[in-house]
């Protein structure tokens, strides 16, 4: 599926909930399902800078596509939920598509404020980091 197809599918899941708190609960629940990553990735090297909580992200490049591995510290459940959504959408996509992705889903699930407010959210940093991987690997391909 393309990035936008995955986003649209997720958005329709979220639209089952009217209340913002229920949407956020869904984000939290998605985070709980995020498979654990190898401890070797939980180092400063993989830390996303700009998050109030600790979130780690690693990328693997195979057959022209980028695969993401991520996790957050156990107490930071919203951050974990958000990285799990980003991984669902972006992992397995082509680097240039990742670099150019328009992640309109965040606005739709009520997390838009976390993208734009640099101080409060690590979300902007997570997106930037993933897109950064996309940019780097799309340039490698050429």
């Amino acid at each position, binding site marked *: 599926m393309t990035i936008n197809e995955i986003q649209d599918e997720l958005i329709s899941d979220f639209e089952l909930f009217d209340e913002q*708190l229920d949407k956020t609960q869904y984000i939290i629940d998605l985070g709980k399902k995020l498979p654990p990553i190898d401890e070797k990735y939980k180092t400063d090297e993989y830390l996303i800078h700009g998050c*109030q909580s600790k979130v780690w992200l690693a990328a693997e490049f195979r057959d022209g596509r980028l695969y993401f591995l991520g996790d957050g510290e156990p107490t930071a*459940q*919203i951050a974990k939920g958000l990285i799990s959504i980003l991984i669902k959408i972006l992992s397995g996509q082509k680097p240039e598509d990742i670099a150019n992705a328009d992640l309109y889903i965040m606005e739709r699930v*009520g997390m838009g404020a976390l993208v734009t407010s640099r101080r409060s959210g690590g979300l902007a940093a997570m997106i930037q980091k993933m897109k950064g991987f996309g940019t780097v690997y799309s340039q490698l391909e050429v």
Partner: protein
Amino acid sequence: MSHSLDIQAIRNDFPILNELVNGKPLVYFDNAATTQKPRLVLDALSGYYEHYNANIHRGIHFLAEKATSAFEQSRHRLQAFLNAAHAEEIIFTYGTTDGINLVASSYGRTFLKAGDEIIISTMEHHSNIVPWQMLCEEKGCVLKVIPINDEGEILMDEYEKLLTERTKFVSVVHVSNSLGTINPVKEIIAKAHAVGAKVLLDGAQASSHLTIDVQDLDCDFYSLSLHKIYGPTGMGILYGKRDLLNAMPPYRGGGEMIKEVTFEKTTYNELPYKFEAGTPNIADVVAAKFALDYVDTLGKPNIAAYENELLKYATEAVSEIPGLKIIGRAKEKVSVLSFVIDGIHHQDIGVLLDQQGIAVRTGHHCTQPLMNRFNITGTSRASFAVYNTTEEIDKLIVGLHKVQKMLG
């Protein structure tokens, strides 16, 4: 102590309190970051721009006269607010941070030299740390830090041990923004003066809760921001003793701060203008007077008594939240309630309360060294102002239970 305030009437003075956030009535508990503004202040701002906007101290026309007069009235109002001996001891700044930088830069660079010691405390805001670090780096001064106890109180005996003839400056926060602690500043000042050191108080938080008398305190400098006292953003004042301010060189150069300029030599204007280069923030200075009038109409002791009731109510109420720990349990404190909850990141608390219409502050509150002292990365902080109510605190408690349920 009981208050005699009509809180509902006060709430009606603040238009923003009618806002809905995420479809819910706003509960604003981020007053330590900035307070909301009463209608009176908003009207003063638009009134200035609608009726007498002009540059000050320069024109002879009617509007310029009127604006200048309103501007200088604010200075006198602030003089009274702090009980300063002279109006020219009130320097208009952009805020607390700006005032501290002025002193570190002008006083510090002129009167401090290599090996001199500057004392601050563990609970300082970054704005009362970094300017001194910059000065230390430039001049080779040494920064010393007063430790605190687990309750969040300054250890006075440790402070005394730090004081020597090398101590030239002490700069401490009057009231901590992260903990709410009211520091024993009068004693701190007297002890510093005994070794010949000058003292600056960071009054960003104290000025909205406590009655401040700079002559009684005998502080050398006092820096505050009006936006934390129901006034406009982007303006504050630095109080300084006249003799000290006179001895200090200007901090910024430009218009207004000069007496005469030639390419060979410029002579500087007198106090307070020497420190007010350029067109100042006239509108906000003018409106500041109305904020202080508002505070005085309610009466600071009334405000303090009511806020203390709110603090007591909230402190008891949060004790029913499992795993919640209050950070900052000083005997003397203002209406700031900082806390952590086992197993929950403060950012999640902030986001989930926000979605319930409740605004608290989460994070390190610009006091990272203080957070390190408590071995935490941040807290959630509810800080109360005169327009808050116990019903709102009840909503906070319900909100926190909901947060725990969602994350459990």
